[in-house]
């Protein structure tokens, strides 16, 4: 076990190192820089900016400096957001994205899994058709369409919920719904297809032959076997959703991390790009590890070995 963890950790560090390298050279390969504005700045100012952020040094030296910073868990100063450290930006805005994200993931699970089960149990009947139509809509309609439509009808016309902002639970409902629309539908479809398959397995027949009730058969024997792909998807989903969605945060004016990520790229805010990328990647790696552990807990046939 300890050996496995060490190995796993070493691989994670290697992965992060590769990600850092690629991110660094790719972001510097984009034409322009922090100093690029609509009106060209005088050369002397550009030189000053370059000197201030160390952009005048050779690229490889900059790479080493940034690598060194990251090893010390310091992503440096943001080049665009005056006077703010990248660490602070993440610390301040990630919790907001994470809060919204957790809420929508909860929504996905609470609604998606039962919807999938219902479809599987009522296969080819109207309940199945209705929920699969909902699921298909959910998978195909982009989140910003859902966001603007719900914003218009529920907030503007019906005035049930606030249009935007992020100060109370009420503010969280619409963005969470918009954010969970696709994954909810996806989870419902995953659960359905797996459940349909599992319900035809021999051990389900055995369970029924023992006289177990339908509920026990479905929720104990079938569900645990059909939940695996959902776990796989969930690992990815948590990493993406918790780190924030640019579109949804923009539409609902939520001060989350997603906005900073996209804006940092268009602003060539190299340190912020690097900081959020590394944070996101580390988060994803961690989630993958959690998924693997959960696998082992659910299916005894899987072992933590490579």
């Amino acid at each position, binding site marked *: 076990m300890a050996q496995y963890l060490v190995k796993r950790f070493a691989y994670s560090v290697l992965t992060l190192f590769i990600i850092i390298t690629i991110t660094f050279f790719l972001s510097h390969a984009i034409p322009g820089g922090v100093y690029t504005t609509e009106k060209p700045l005088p050369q002397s100012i550009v030189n000053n900016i370059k000197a201030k952020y160390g952009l005048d040094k050779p690229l490889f030296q900059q790479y080493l400096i940034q690598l060194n910073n990251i090893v010390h868990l310091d992503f440096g100063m943001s080049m665009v957001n005056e006077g703010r450290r990248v660490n602070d930006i993440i610390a301040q805005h990630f919790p907001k994205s994470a809060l919204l994200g957790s809420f929508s993931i909860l929504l996905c699970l609470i609604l998606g899994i039962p919807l999938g089960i219902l479809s599987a149990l009522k*296969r080819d009947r109207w309940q199945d058709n209705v929920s699969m139509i909902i699921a298909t809509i959910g998978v195909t309609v982009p989140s910003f369409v859902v966001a603007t439509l719900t914003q218009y009808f529920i907030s503007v016309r019906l005035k049930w919920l606030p249009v935007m902002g992020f100060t109370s639970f009420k503010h969280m409902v619409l963005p969470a719904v918009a954010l969970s629309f696709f994954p909810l539908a996806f989870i419902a479809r995953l659960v359905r297809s797996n459940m349909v398959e599992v319900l035809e*397995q*021999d*051990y389900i*027949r*055995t*369970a*029924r*032959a*023992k*006289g*177990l*009730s*339908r509920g*026990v058969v479905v929720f*104990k*024997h079938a569900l*645990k*076997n059909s939940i695996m792909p959902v776990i796989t998807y969930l690992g990815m989903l948590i990493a993406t959703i918790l780190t924030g969605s640019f579109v949804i945060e923009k539409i609902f004016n939520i001060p989350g991390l997603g906005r900073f990520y996209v804006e940092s790229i268009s602003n060539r805010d190299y340190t912020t790009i690097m900081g959020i990328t590394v944070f996101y990647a580390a988060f994803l790696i961690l989630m993958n590890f959690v998924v693997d552990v959960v696998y082992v807990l*659910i*299916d*005894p*046939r899987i072992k933590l070995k490579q």
Partner: protein
Amino acid sequence: MGKLLEIKNLRTAFKTYAGEVCAVNGISFCVSHGEAVGIVGESGSGKSVTMLSVMKLLADNGRMVDGDILFDGVRLNDYDDRAMQNIRGKSIGMIFQDPMTSLNPVFTVGNQMVEAILKHNRIPRQQAWQKAVDMLKLVGIPNAEGRMKQYPHEFSGGMRQRVMIAMALSCEPKLLIADEPTTALDVTIQAQIIELMKELKNKINMAIILITHDLGVVADICERVIVMYGGIIVEQGKLDEIFYQPLHPYTVGLLNSIPRLNLGKNRLEPIEGQPPDMIHAPQGCPFVARCPRAMKICDMAKPEYVEPSEGHGAACWLLLKGHRGEM
């Protein structure tokens, strides 16, 4: 001995792309308390469907269209799924063909055994656990306490089938339905499982319905044999009667096809042809196309089931026309 299970004119049909297809087409038989009955026949002859009809565990597209099922004096036709839950596992235990896939891979063997016991008995968990351990010991699983905490994938095929048997017997059913319990096992394990079933049958005095296509297994354990073909019972009788005085040409063919070492034959003797296509079910006797003694009438009408002697009968025109021949 009183009758434990009585099936009268059972017909079970499945919805298919070609409409409803009858897999079991009007069969009747009885099983007495403590009796071991073998149902033999090739794949698709309706053996399993018959027993799944009794348990009401047919697939979603299947349903019982006609007939009565009486179990221990009650008519199971009237039972809904909830009522059947108290029959399944408690009064009727069932074990299946493939022990490799018949246990849930994500729960321990103990968990799966205890849940069956707790479902039918109002006893504390501790006691159910002990009962499960005792059952595992009874079916000859060494280190039963430790094995309870293991998962099915840690058991061999033969051991899993023993677990299945232990599970099916844990609530002392009056009837055990064994649906090809040895088909998926290798020969030595087969013999062990059959030996075990024989032993347990004598120990707890339950009736057994053994579905198989292995006549050797039937000869080993059963007192009575039912031969099915194309969804009907073509012949039934006591073990000796079926083996030594078969009435139906299909039974004769089955017996001839058993490989024998002592007769010096090198080739197996098959029954030529294919079983009938149930989607386009034959109008007359289902065996007519393969029957070496087929007559004109066999093609046109179904023969009635008749019993020339008490408890031994067949559905064949040869009997009805009065000439038994020298089969």
